[in-house]
């Protein structure tokens, strides 16, 4: 909300600088995001401020209130005039093209003179033709007539974008006085949080400032000169749904003359972000900005006409099926059934709390105005406003809650302003229907309740005084109980334990958050509930980092096509098989991922342009719809990717070879050891939609399939912008891996006696998997077999076609003695026998 300082000062004296006031507002929970200076001095450019600043300071010596005494034709230009201007010191001749002076051309001496904003030579103004820039007035000739000063438009002074005519000030503006003193201003742009709805009127903001300063609040006078015939019998109001419309009141003003509002009113409306329309509409907006209560003006004569010449009856009710209304923006709107309407006997007049109808709005010819002040159910207004995509100042306020008590003062205030500005006569009395009176909560509590929440020791009297500043009616009873009656402008104070929390916030706010002490938690420590998931995930990530992999985090949102791109088939699965968004931000981010691999491939693809070697992993959830229940499964996955040379280029030695299947397999094997998995991972030939059929392994832990590891299928790889090096990928079940991490592990004794080490090479058929040979060696070697390491795979003519030789280094060791050659020979014999029997292997001489 935009709050002009001059307006705020109508209600409270503020002995603070603009900047200090901004800080005070922020400290009260009314966060000032920006201040626009409209004439008042600006802070130095290097000032440390919590808000943005903009605007223009008006030099008091150079920009003053002046009077135009005569408007003369320009000797050489039809579209310019010469104004005879008196600035309190001397008369000046000013050349101007302001259209709103042309009417006075050649009328001779003006009495009364026109009051204007006059800028002397050297004055700095905003450059109307260069947004954000300024200009300094210089002496020059315009069409042969010397000019050194000007009469200003609002744009040059930074009041508004209005540049058509010059400002014509109200007649009582004091000639010769610096303009900054007369109407210099600053506009606070305040972010109003939902709990601060009471500050959606400037009076509400003033009330907070008054409370903080301990200063009195000057509530605007609501006395109305009512000299017309009584309203009684000339308008009736009927509320059919008090929940939707707790209060509705109308007043009547007659013999109005529509015209512009006083300049000061227009200026304030503009600074507050509203467009002046005419004195009647301006009065409704002015009072809404003042009190926070929206108002609506009807052309009374149209209502009478619609009632067939009778006194109109205003009826508020829910919309009927298919009901339509043309709103005052000229749009015909179909009203949802939950909308609440202001109607008369002839049909809808306006969408309650959102926007008025075109037919009954005030127009230049309006003579009689029926003024509405009402309160509506916030949820209804919010739903209607959303459904019709209509965000108005009224709807904005009603959605956040307007206290029904504001209806009467706002109505009276607006009637009086209309009377003053339009010359009308106000009918005596108002029609006020209030079937559902607001109950303002009374909260009873003790200082101990406040101490329990705030950790702040205040006495009952101190608490009472703080709350009284915010207009709570507070009684302190002898037993120390405090009783606080909520003032009739607030809807944000609850009852019971909620009410006490609400009051604690008010007390903390006024006392000052920064004055509340800071203490260490002294409360009992919670029990340990064994929430080990995160710690285990950290262990897995740490191990991968140690193995040289870079962690990445990618978008959870993707598209079926993106996932399909990573499969050989390339066929996207239907959206319906995914967790799908109703309102995606982009078509290619419309579902939640079901695999991590495609994202990892996209990351690697982008990076392949900059680096040859990549080693990446991602840990995170995938989202799998479930047959039953609203929510999907969110299992964790671990994906890994390697590509490029095994090592980065180095100046000595040959370039490293590209990484292959066994590099990634090595990462997984080492990971398993690093994590102390209870058993080694097993790898079996496997199949995976993204992987090379001959270079894919199923990864198992015990009987549990953890996932797959393999080289990216060449057809898949071809869809991405990768170089020639193989891309190795793996995707594992993160939850299974995480849950397999043991809480503890037991060390094997460190051997005391040296091992016997020997090399054994077996010739087996090509089809025999290496793992089977190793299993046979281990089975044959028994308890003394300490280690088996494959160190060579050989194929060649001398061992025969279709055969391969696998050379192992084996270590035999006993815990209690050094093994002899005889022992070693015995073990070897068993191994050779076992290998021969199980895989048909023959020991190579």
């Amino acid at each position, binding site marked *: 909300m935009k709050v002009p300082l001059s307006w705020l000062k109508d209600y409270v004296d503020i002995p603070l600088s603009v900047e200090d006031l901004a800080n005070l507002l922020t400290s009260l*929970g009314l966060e000032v995001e920006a201040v626009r200076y409209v004439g008042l001095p600006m802070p130095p450019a*290097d*000032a*440390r401020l*919590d808000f*943005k600043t903009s605007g223009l300071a008006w030099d008091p010596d150079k920009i003053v209130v002046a009077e135009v005494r005569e408007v003369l034709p320009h000797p050489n230009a039809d579209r310019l005039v010469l104004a005879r201007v008196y600035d309190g010191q001397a008369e000046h001749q000013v050349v101007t093209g302001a259209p709103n002076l042309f009417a006075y051309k050649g009328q001779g001496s003006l009495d009364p003179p026109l009051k204007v904003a006059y800028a002397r030579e050297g004055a700095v103004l905003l450059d109307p033709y260069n947004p954000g820039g300024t200009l300094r007035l210089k002496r020059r000739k315009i069409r042969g007539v010397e000019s050194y000063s000007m009469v200003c438009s609002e744009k040059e002074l930074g009041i508004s974008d209005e540049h058509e005519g010059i400002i014509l000030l109200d007649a009582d503006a004091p000639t010769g006085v610096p303009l900054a003193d007369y109407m210099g201003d600053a506009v606070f742009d305040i972010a109003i*949080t*939902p*709990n601060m709805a009471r500050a959606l009127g400037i009076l509400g903001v003033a009330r907070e400032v008054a409370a903080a300063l301990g200063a009195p609040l000057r509530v605007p006078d609501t006395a109305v000169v009512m000299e017309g015939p009584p309203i009684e019998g000339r308008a009736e109001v009927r509320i059919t749904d008090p929940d939707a419309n707790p209060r509705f009141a109308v007043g009547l003003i007659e013999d109005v003359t529509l015209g512009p509002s006083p300049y000061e009113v227009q200026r304030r409306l503009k600074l507050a972000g509203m467009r002046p329309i005419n004195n009647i509409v301006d009065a409704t907006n002015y009072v809404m900005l003042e009190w926070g209560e929206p108002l609506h003006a009807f052309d009374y004569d149209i209502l009478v006409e619609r009632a067939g010449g009778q006194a109109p009856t205003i009826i508020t009710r829910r919309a009927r099926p298919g009901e339509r209304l043309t709103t005052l923006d000229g749009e015909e709107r179909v009203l949802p059934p939950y909308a609440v309407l202001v109607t008369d006997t002839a049909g809808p007049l306006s969408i309650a709390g959102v926007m008025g109808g075109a037919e009954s709005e005030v127009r230049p010819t309006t003579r009689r105005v029926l003024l509405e002040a009402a309160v509506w159910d916030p949820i209804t207004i919010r739903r209607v406003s959303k459904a019709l995509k209509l965000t108005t100042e009224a709807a904005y306020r009603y959605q*956040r809650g307007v206290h029904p008590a504001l209806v009467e003062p706002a109505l009276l205030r607006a009637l009086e302003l209309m009377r003053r500005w339009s010359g009308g006569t106000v009918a005596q009395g108002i029609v006020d229907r209030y079937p559902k009176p607001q109950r303002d909560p009374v909260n009873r509590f003790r200082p101990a309740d406040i101490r*329990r*929440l*705030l*950790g*702040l020791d205040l006495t009952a009297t101190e608490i009472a005084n703080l709350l009284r500043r915010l207009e709570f009616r507070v009684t302190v009873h002898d037993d120390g109980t405090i009783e606080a009656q909520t003032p009739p402008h607030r809807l944000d104070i609850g009852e019971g334990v909620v009410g006490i*929390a609400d009051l*604690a*916030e008010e007390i903390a706010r006024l006392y000052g*958050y920064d004055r*509340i*002490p*800071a*203490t*260490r*938690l*002294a*409360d*009992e420590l*919670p*029990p340990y*509930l064994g929430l080990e998931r*995160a710690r285990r995930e950290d262990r897995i990530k740490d191990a*991968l*980092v140690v193995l*040289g992999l*870079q*962690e*990445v*985090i*990618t*978008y*959870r*949102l993707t598209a079926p096509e993106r996932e399909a791109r990573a499969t050989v088939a390339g066929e996207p699965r239907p959206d319906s098989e995914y967790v799908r*968004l*109703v*309102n*995606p*931000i982009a078509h290619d*981010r419309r579902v939640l991922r079901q695999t991590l691999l495609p994202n990892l491939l996209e990351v690697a693809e*982008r*990076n392949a342009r*900059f680096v040859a070697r990549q*080693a990446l992993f991602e840990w*995170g959830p995938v989202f799998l719809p479930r047959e039953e229940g*609203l*929510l999907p499964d*969110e299992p964790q996955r671990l994906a890994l990717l390697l590509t490029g040379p095994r*090592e*980065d280029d*180095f100046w000595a030695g040959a370039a490293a070879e590209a990484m292959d299947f066994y590099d990634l397999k090595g990462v997984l094997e080492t990971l398993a050891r690093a994590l102390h998995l209870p058993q080694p991972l097993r790898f079996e030939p496997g199949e995976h939609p993204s992987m090379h059929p001959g270079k894919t392994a199923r990864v198992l832990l015990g009987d549990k399939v953890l996932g797959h590891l393999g080289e990216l299928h060449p057809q898949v790889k071809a869809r991405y912008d990768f170089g020639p090096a193989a891309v190795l990928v793996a995707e594992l079940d993160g939850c299974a891996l995480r849950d397999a991490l043991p809480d503890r592990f037991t060390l094997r004794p460190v051997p005391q006696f040296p091992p016997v080490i020997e090399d054994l090479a077996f010739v087996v058929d090509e089809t025999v998997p290496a793992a089977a040979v190793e299993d046979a060696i281990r089975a044959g070697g028994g308890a003394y077999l300490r280690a088996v390491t494959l160190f060579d795979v050989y194929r060649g003519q001398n061992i025969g076609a279709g055969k391969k030789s696998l050379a192992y280094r084996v270590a035999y060791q006993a815990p209690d003695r050094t093994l002899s050659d005889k022992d070693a020979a015995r073990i070897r014999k068993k191994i050779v026998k076992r290998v021969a029997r199980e895989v048909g292997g023959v020991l190579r001489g």
Partner: protein
Amino acid sequence: MLAELERLYQQALAELEAITDSVALDAWRIAHLGRKAPLMQAFGRMREIPPEERPQVGRRINELRDALQAAYEARAEALRQAELARALQEERLDVTLPGRPRPYGRLHPTTQTIRDIVGIFQSMGFQVFQSREVETDEYNFQLLNIPPHHPARDMQDTFYVATPGVDEDETPPVVLRTHTSPGQIHAMRHYAAQDPENPPPIRVVLPGMVFRYEQITARSEIQFTQVEGLAVGRHITFSDLKGTLTEWARRMFGPGARTRFRPSYFPFTEPSVEMDVECFLCGGKGCSVCKHTGWLEVLGAGMVHPVVLRNGGYDPERYSGFAFGMGPERITMLRHGIQDIRHFWRNDVRFLEQF
């Protein structure tokens, strides 16, 4: 004989002086200290001298032999040193040549910052609690005191998940969580289940990914992480909130980090605050990162709203608590001068490898 030996001795010393390599040194040792060396054989020739002179001559021969032996060892050591020096000289490297590159893994910057944040809270007795990313409207909003049509829903633009059987104009019941706060309810219910009559106190931190329906720009993302915190107990106050978060800020940003608290609004806390930390880049003097305010907004917090406590299974008459939430990406950006939030999920190695 003695005179001859003296002469031989002088000659041997002179020869030794001239030797520069180990082969010659070995030959010298055989010639002058070997069994056939004249000095060694002199003992055998004792018969040639008068018996009364023998002791004196014998002593002198021993002296000469020891002297030669010592001279030999000194020379041998000198030669060894010279050879070592030469070898070291020859092995000299160009130490300015680049070192062998080692593959180096790193955690994602978000993970690093989350660990920093969480680690501090863990040392204060907070435990990590994780909860799901796809949530019901009930958990994401309603149980957090944000009923349907509450204006606070405007503060969080929401991704809605299609749910079979739910009409297009109805508010869908499933959302991508817009904050980690639903974890507060999960955590409270998890703890309260231990003893529903007298639920135990809680101190948890809830790191996780959240989602907002926003355009992706340098300043806004559709997904980002949050670290939520929650402390519930029988004696937890707003001053504890201030003390805990101030202490966290000191450990996170340095022992001199100053903090300030401003009123704010979150539907699930009351009172609500925002905490600023004095800009650690300019020391509070004002710079472009702190937008010349001298302060950086780092977190929102507040006392847990009584309705939220009740929804979590904790009686607000007996229990109180505080909650807080912060954005690891924002903190990472502030700490490292990152201008564009889109770097985080783009995973450009040239970005990641700098962490």
